[in-house]
């Protein structure tokens, strides 16, 4: 095989990979995680990622979402607006920051994706969003709970659940777009709030293996119903 053809093949395949990736994720930039945390609870993120609107229009849309029940602090609102107007605006977005030797993420940083709904300390926000503190510990103590927790974070859960005496019927989105490493980090971050004796931390390999299952959120719910929870 000649070299140019080689390069072309690789370039085409990389472009394919890039497109597959870019279709469903927001561009990297300050505020991306707040946008994900706040918008994903109700929207398929592709719905947001494909918009290209002026700052003024984004501002009006955030107002509309507030009418519809979006909870944001003024700071979060400003961050979200800046991000949307810059990266999903009518002008081409600024070039992504040069790939610096990215400092390894911590579980707490990845948890920014969760705290919009579950609260900074995992305290939850009933009746819409269940707490994680305490609840995760119960899950991990149950047989099969360790595997379930991983699948719930990866694929999401849909349907009615009862958690610590309260009913929740919202939809938890899946976080399959996080890397295996990030998912393992965030799972271990949750575990830090309480785990049974001799708990084995999650590993990226485990996450990778779980991806092969390709479950729907309703199927994850069925797994949950099979657990013996207090």
């Amino acid at each position, binding site marked *: *095989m*000649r070299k140019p053809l080689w390069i072309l093949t690789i370039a085409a395949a*990389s472009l394919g990979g890039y497109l*597959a990736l870019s279709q469903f994720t927001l561009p990297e930039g300050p505020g991306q995680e707040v946008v994900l945390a706040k918008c994903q609870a*109700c*929207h398929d993120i592709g719905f947001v990622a494909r918009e290209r609107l002026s700052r003024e229009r984004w501002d009006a849309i955030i107002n*509309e979402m507030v009418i519809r029940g979006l909870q944001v602090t003024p700071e979060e609102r400003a961050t979200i607006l800046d991000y949307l107007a810059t990266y999903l605006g009518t002008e081409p977005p600024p070039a992504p920051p040069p790939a610096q030797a990215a400092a390894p993420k911590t579980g707490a940083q990845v948890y920014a994706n969760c705290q919009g709904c579950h609260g900074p300390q995992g305290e939850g926000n009933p009746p819409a969003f269940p707490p994680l503190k305490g609840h995760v510990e119960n899950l991990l103590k149950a047989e099969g709970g360790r595997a379930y927790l991983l699948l719930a974070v990866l694929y999401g859960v849909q349907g009615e659940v009862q958690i610590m005496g309260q009913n929740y019927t*919202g939809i938890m989105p899946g976080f399959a777009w996080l890397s295996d490493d990030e998912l393992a980090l965030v799972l271990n971050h949750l575990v830090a709030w309480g785990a049974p004796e001799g708990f084995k931390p999650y590993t990226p390999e485990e996450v990778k293996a779980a991806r092969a299952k390709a479950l729907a959120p309703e199927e994850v719910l069925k797994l949950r119903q099979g657990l013996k929870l207090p």
Partner: protein
Amino acid sequence: MEKVNRRTTLKLMGMGAALLAAGGRGLAQQTPTADQLVKGKNPKMIVLSQRPVVMETPYDLLVSNPERTPKEILYIRNNVDLPGYNTVEGANLEGWKVEVSGLVDKPFTFEAKELLSLPQHEVTMVLQCSGNGRTLYNPRPSGNPWKRGGMGNVTFRGVRLKDLLAAKGVKLGEKAFYITAHASRQGNAPEFVRSVPIHALENALLALSMNGEPLPAVHGGPVRLVFPGYFGVNNVKWVEKIEFTEGENTTTEQVPRYRVPTIPNAAIPFLPQEPGKTYPYTLQNSRPNWLVTLNSFIFAPLEGQTVEGPYVRVEGVAFNDGIVPIVSVEVSTNGGRTWHQAQLERQEKSFGWIRWRTTVYLRSGEHEIMARAWDAAGRSQPLDGNIAWNERGYEYSGVMRVKFTVA
């Protein structure tokens, strides 16, 4: 091509594996196809949003069924997803209750299955999302990027709301100016409420079936309150409460969503919003997407097609709000300088689409054809649809243009 030796093969395989590993994140998240999201839908449907489910009919599939749009390919614009309702099969009538209240002398609740014992009525109508054609506006409005496949022609069957009221001996209050319908909130679904003017009662139907089959759950089964002549959003799915009210409802689906700007007390067809700007929607300075705008669509030839000449058959459909008949559809092959009348399938008031066809004589080469409809109220379509630009991209009705080649 040179023979690929073993070493190159191995290198390529390694490269492929590396790419798969890198692309895995993206590929793992490939959008599910329409049939994976909604049981029984044609997998070729274009998925615009997975949550709530929004899918568009590819234009070639739409035109391949020019009489009626089958449930497998009918577009979906759900604002609410009821758990377990993502299927084209019918939903269970058993135990489904609907409350009728507000400005009536005797409020009541009825069971959906009671409707089966009342006289049934059938209506064929165009169901169209008010955002259909949104991508044709410039600059791009927000929302699902509909092309032209956010519509279909379907036959609903069920009981007229006014027949039900008569059967129950219920009289409307003097100030019952609007019909306000609420969708079910089962499974903690968000609120969805729409109001339409009381004159819609004339044709309002509590639909139980569509195209001769039980009303698909994803399209609002078991009971959908259908208003022929009105945009899709007003036809409330999974209806559980019907109120007669003095004013329009003020929840988000009524204001600021699903509205276009107007000048108070001025009945001009197109509206003063500067493209790209926002608008402070209120009940006074805007109106809801109610009656369907007059529109026509070219079903043949299709964009980019090559057809045999010199006699080229041009056909399509046209529809309006059903208040007056469509009186003519014209076709132009020279950018709108001259127009040629097409034959209409029928000339009567209709909520369904009316098919039209004509034959034009074209020499070989590339051509652009345009079609526009006129109705008995003197309404027609703008040559430049962008004149009605609004920030959410509703109610596009610009003249359709199709480029094709004559062999």
